[in-house]
């Protein structure tokens, strides 16, 4: 099986880690997400009763 040929093993290891550490993370980090996550508080917000100010 040619995959078991040990000669390019170290080169493939080094090269794949170089690509994995230098090219990919900047591409992932470049994506920004518009909404910041908000932690939910367990209590429901206190609301005051209000009337439509018709007039």
């Amino acid at each position: 099986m040619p995959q078991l040929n040990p000669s390019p093993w170290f080169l493939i290891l080094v090269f794949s880690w170089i690509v994995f550490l230098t090219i990919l993370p900047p591409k992932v980090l470049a994506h920004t997400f518009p909404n910041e996550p908000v932690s939910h508080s367990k209590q429901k917000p206190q609301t005051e009763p209000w009337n439509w100010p018709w007039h």
Partner: protein
Amino acid sequence: MTLSFFDQFMSPTLLGIPLIALALTLPWVLFPQPSTRWMNNRLLTLQNWFISRFTQQIFQPINLPGHKWALILTSLMLFLISLNMLGLLPYTFTPTTQLSLNMALAVPLWLATVIIGMRTQPTHALGHLLPEGTPTLLIPVLIIIETISLFIRPLALGVRLTANLTAGHLLIQLIATAAFVLLPIMPTTAILTSILLLLLTLLEVAVAMIQAYVFVLLLSLYLQENV
């Protein structure tokens, strides 16, 4: 030189240049830099959605200290899924069929999770070697078995990905050869074989995505055990 079906997995070289270098550097052209505009094009929007949903899915069950791994595991997912999917195109080389690459990814990452566990919470990490409720007499045997299963993890991670992709590519080549050879002799059988080939290719697309996901998911589980 007689060709065998395994020759497609030889690391290709052209005039002494290893082409695996191209196979590892060119796929990232498909991930463009997002612009500063409020809305990007379809490709970027889809990639953005995928990255955010994937990161959320994987890290939801993981304790807070493990969230430092978000960047590396998401990069790993993009790495594997792109390489796997692009390898299904004709005349492409799939670097993830190389055992060297998969072991190169699996062993250091697994080792990192184990070392993190041993350094920050050694008792908790070692406690995984003994499942709860074991009968007293079985304890020594079970610890040995669990240690073996712990050390087999990186091997399993690497070989699982290699074997799945290699087997898939091999099957595609075999059935395609069969369909091609049968075409002048028994056209109907050739058409049936072609339909089989189509279904197999669809399966391989699914396998490509699933295997990438499983690799990253298992690493996240190993991380969760140790963090």
